[in-house]
């Protein structure tokens, strides 16, 4: 018999390494043991990719793959359904860090390729990921890398690579920026046909040797005829890079509150584990600082929407209509997937919450989880209200919290909900009418929990 504490810990893991799990899913996962679940999460190749033929068929109007909304829809569908949740979560992490936006790129197939690259390689070696990122046409166009010529250097990509993607400000000189950019001269993309009359085509990476600066470059204390790959090899070895990634991983996967000791442990793991992101995340998920960090982060809109919809049991089948409402929902909460506001990405943590975004979040959750006919909600209510004998509203509240994925409520929220419910005494479940009443109350409780302050946290 798995303890409630063990189930709660796995629930925390699934919220952070995935997009949450329901009570029955958590019981099944917990029976395998926490470490085994972590092992599966960081080994996505053990599980098949999500089949998407039905989804693509019933959204056949997107056969052109032109719309960024379509890419975002597919991504939301994967967040909800993928048997490899950490792949999608890692893609979301890297998308925030290597923020590239449709607003400038304006090419659906290219944005899709970048997202797919982040998903496919996001749990691999960090150096390899940076090398792929530097060859990604959407990134090249986003940061004007196609205008970085041997005889006319454009420092944009070189600067952001150092400042925002790997080391952070203060850990390099302006000369390093210049020489980094020189190493990437000639790294460009193919011209593609214009979108009229037949739609968008994706570009491919192309290296033009005649446009590359073959001169000697001094970079971060090393000297040589470096190209982009050489520069990346140097970057990934830097202690500043380890620290930078440690901060980013801690902020995304662990806590909104800074913890320098934990960040240093992650940085050390990065260096000790050969810059392998999946292994670093394994270290994080098995650490005490991670286990102690439940509900210390504000959910990002994508996490909030995918997790809520996942709990509701909706959109498990690609046929279901209305999937495009989900990217619209994250947009109304301040996060438009594939279109971050700037190259810095989104401001996270408490900044996800302002009065307008909060209203959108509460309305969305209350609406989706208040839909008692949604398969996930119906199942949840059924499980929460089953059992024999009388049950108090407070016990029912605890059962609902457990079935919703081991959620937690503070005392003030509990008191408000119970007061609002206004049930004196216990609910008798001996009769059919009594069982129905218990179900009705459970349904109300699910909606109320979804509207609580605590539901905003992960």
């Amino acid at each position, binding site marked *: 018999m798995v303890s409630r504490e063990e189930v709660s810990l796995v629930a925390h893991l699934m919220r952070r390494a995935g997009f949450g799990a329901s009570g029955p899913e958590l019981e099944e996962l917990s029976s395998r043991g926490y470490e085994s679940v972590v092992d599966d999460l960081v080994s996505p190749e053990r599980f098949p990719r999500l089949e998407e*033929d*039905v989804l693509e*068929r*019933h959204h*056949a*109007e*997107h*056969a*052109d*793959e032109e*719309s960024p*909304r379509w890419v975002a829809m597919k991504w939301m569908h994967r967040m909800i359904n993928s048997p490899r949740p950490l792949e999608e979560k890692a893609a979301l992490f890297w998308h925030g860090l290597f923020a590239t936006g449709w607003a400038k790129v304006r090419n659906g197939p290219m944005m899709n390729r970048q997202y797919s690259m982040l998903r496919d390689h996001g749990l691999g070696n960090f150096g390899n990921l940076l090398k792929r990122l530097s060859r990604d046409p959407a990134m090249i166009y986003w940061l004007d890398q196609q205008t970085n010529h041997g005889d006319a250097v454009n420092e944009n990509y070189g600067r952001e690579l150092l400042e925002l993607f790997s080391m952070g400000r203060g850990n390099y000189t302006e000369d390093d920026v210049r020489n980094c950019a020189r190493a990437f001269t000639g790294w460009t993309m*193919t*011209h*593609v*046909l*214009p*979108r*009229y*009359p*037949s*739609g968008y*085509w994706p570009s491919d990476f192309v290296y033009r040797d005649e446009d590359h600066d073959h001169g000697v470059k001094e970079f971060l204390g090393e000297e040589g005829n470096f190209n982009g790959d050489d520069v990346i090899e140097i970057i990934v070895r830097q202690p500043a890079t380890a620290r930078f990634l440690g901060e980013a991983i801690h902020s995304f996967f662990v806590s909104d509150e800074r913890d320098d000791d934990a960040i240093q442990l992650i940085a050390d793991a990065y260096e000790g584990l050969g810059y392998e992101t999946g292994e670093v995340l394994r270290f994080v998920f098995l650490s005490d600082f991670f286990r102690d960090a439940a509900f210390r982060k504000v959910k990002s809109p994508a996490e909030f929407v995918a997790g809520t919809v996942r709990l509701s049991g909706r959109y498990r089948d690609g*046929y279901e*209509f*209305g*999937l*495009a*409402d989900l990217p*619209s929902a994250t947009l109304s909460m301040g996060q438009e997937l594939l279109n971050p506001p700037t190259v810095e990405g989104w401001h996270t943590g408490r900044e996800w919450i302002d009065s307008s975004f909060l209203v959108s979040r509460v309305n969305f959750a209350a609406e989706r989880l208040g839909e008692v006919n949604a398969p996930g909600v119906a199942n949840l209510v059924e499980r929460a209200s089953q059992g024999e004998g009388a049950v108090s509203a407070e016990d029912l509240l605890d059962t609902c919290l457990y079935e919703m994925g081991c959620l937690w409520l503070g005392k003030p929220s509990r008191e408000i909900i119970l007061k609002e419910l206004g049930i004196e005494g216990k609910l008798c479940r001996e009769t059919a009418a009594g069982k129905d009443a218990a179900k009705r109350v459970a349904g109300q409780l699910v909606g109320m929990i979804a509207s609580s302050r605590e539901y905003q946290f992960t």
Partner: protein
Amino acid sequence: MVIELEIQSGRPSGPKYDGVTGYPYMLRGGHKFEIALGQRLALGGFKGPMDLAIGRDELYVVNRFSENSSNVARNRFVRVTIEDEGYEDDDIYAPGPGGGFESNGNETLPSWVMCDIDDEGILYVTDEHANKVARFRTSGEYLGVWGESGEGAGELNGASGVAVDGEGSVWVTSSRNHRVERFTKSGDYLGGFGVYGEAPGELNYPWGLGIDPVNGTIMVADWRNDRVQRFSPEGEVLQVIGESGSGPGQMNRPSGVAVDKYGDIYVADRSNHRGLMFNPRGGFLESFIGDATLNERGMRKLMTNLDMLRMRENVVDLDTEKRFLNPTSVKVDDEDRVYWVDSGRYRVQVYSKVCKVLGPDEIDPPSMFKDPALS
């Protein structure tokens, strides 16, 4: 796997017709690309072209553009007329905001899929979420809907393919019930066939339909089984063509199927981004990968935009522009033209068949059904 085709057609059995299949003997000479119709939507053109119906002198192309539940209003037909030097098109049904369209019963049709036309010029279009068949005159006049959602015989669940046969019956694919249902033009249920599975005669999430113009048999794009199957109107399986893969004659989620008057079978091999052609016995003959050239409309669009013109001049290889992207449907007409609905590229690619039918006074036909001795 290929099941031997044995159809007694009722056609005269003479020296120039095959006595078993009923199709005329002919010499096949391949296909010639004719024209690409349509362009990305911009003051006319296509958005989400899914299927077409062939009228007397024009085509009716179903366009589907439904993104979310509050933005479902842009499904529409585009009428296309092929002219001597190009083509003309115009919307015949472009509903305003507020729903797929609002009929007398406030029906909302969010997800148009496929269409056909009957001998009276009435268009039929399926909607896979409403599970309805809507009818229009070619003028665009809306004539109402029929069809009931459900999982029983005669009910629709994921209505997709539609085809009107020579007797005026309307066949509709009930994809998620893994069945094909037969109705009168006004929607009275006449019967149907199909059961979930992968054995011959069983179906897995079927999509497009085609009626053989010679013998009235029904071709079904057995989408998730990666094959097409031929059925008699009574539901007896007569032929199975194709298997999973991307090699010659293999299929990856075929969505449309058509048969021409010579019995040749065309398949929209959607996820392989190509079309396939088989002879009446199911032997693989030819692949279509797309040959579109810029039509006059496309040229006009480019000539008014210098940025696009400059971009185009810098492209090294224009070949990619010619190719299919997710072709969803194929239709054939009486004049030996083949129409591929190239959904991902906002166009219809039209080919004409090059062939010679052996007339009564010409040479004796080669035997279609005996392998020549190998030398």
